[in-house]
C-alpha cells in the first residue's frame, strides 16, 4: 500500500511539507525506545511513537523509514519537523493512541507479513 492511501484513510495530519507521498509502505513498527527501533524497524516501514523530539527524525532517516506517526496528540518539536524536511522523512500526527493507530494500520493491511515470508 502506498503512503498517500494510508494518510487519506487514517486522516493523518502531516507536519512536514511533502507533496509526493507515493512510496510503498513496507509494514510498521511501534516503540518509544529509540535503540529498539534502530534494532528492529526495517527500511520502508511506518514507525508509530509518542516521542516528538528531533532525534526521531535522525533515527527514522538513518533507518530509511517511509514515515513517522506521532500518536496520542503528542507534540512534535519544530526542529523535528525541520529535520524531517531536510531528510526526506514525512512526519504525521494523530489524536489516536499508539494502540488505536496501530490497530487501524493493521486493519488497512499494513502488516509485517511481507517481511516474515
Amino acid at each position: 500500500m502506498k503512503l498517500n492511501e494510508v494518510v487519506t484513510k487514517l486522516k493523518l495530519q502531516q507536519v512536514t511539507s511533502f507533496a509526493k507521498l507515493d512510496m510503498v509502505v513496507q509494514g510498521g513498527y511501534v516503540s518509544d525506545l529509540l535503540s529498539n527501533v534502530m534494532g528492529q524497524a526495517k527500511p520502508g516501514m511506518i514507525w508509530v511513537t509518542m516521542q516528538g523530539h528531533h532525534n526521531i527524525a535522525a533515527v527514522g532517516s538513518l533507518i530509511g523509514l517511509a514515515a513517522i506517526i506521532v500518536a496520542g496528540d503528542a507534540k512534535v518539536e519544530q526542529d523535528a519537523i525541520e529535520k524531517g524536511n531536510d531528510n526526506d522523512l514525512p512526519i504525521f500526527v494523530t489524536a489516536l493512541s499508539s494502540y488505536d493507530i496501530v490497530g487501524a494500520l493493521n486493519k488497512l493491511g499494513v502488516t509485517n507479513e511481507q517481511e516474515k515470508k
Partner: protein
Amino acid sequence: MKVEYQVPGGDFDRAGEASANIKKLLQRIGIPADVIRRIAIGTYEGEMNCLIHAGGGRVVAEIEPEGTVIIISDQGPGIPDIQKAMQEGWSTAPDYVRAMGFGAGMGLPNMMKCSDDFNIQSKVGEGSTITMKFLYK
C-alpha cells in the same frame, strides 16, 4: 578516505550529525544501501553513547574499497564492567535521557549485531574506544 567528526557532550540538539554525515558520504560513493544502514545504526548508537555517557568524543570513519571502519572514542569515565554494559537492557542513563527514549540498554548490543567485527576497549578514568568493521558484501 578518512573523515573525522567531533561529538558534542550532552548536546541533544546536535546529536546524530556524525552518523548522518557519514551516511551521506557513503551514499555518494555508492556503497550498498543495506551496508550503509548498518554503518549508520552502529555509528548513531556509538555517537549517542559518547554524548550521553562520556561528555562527548570523536568519530572517525575510514572508508576503504572493501569496507568501512568506524572508531568512536572518548575521554569520559570509562566502563567499569564491560560484560554488564554489553547486556541487553543494562543502562546507567539518567531519567531525563530515558524520557527521550534513549537509555534502553540496547545500544552496545545493537552495535555488535550490526557490525562484522566489534571491539570495545575501556579504562575507568581514561575513556573508551569502540571499533566496528563493516564489509560491503
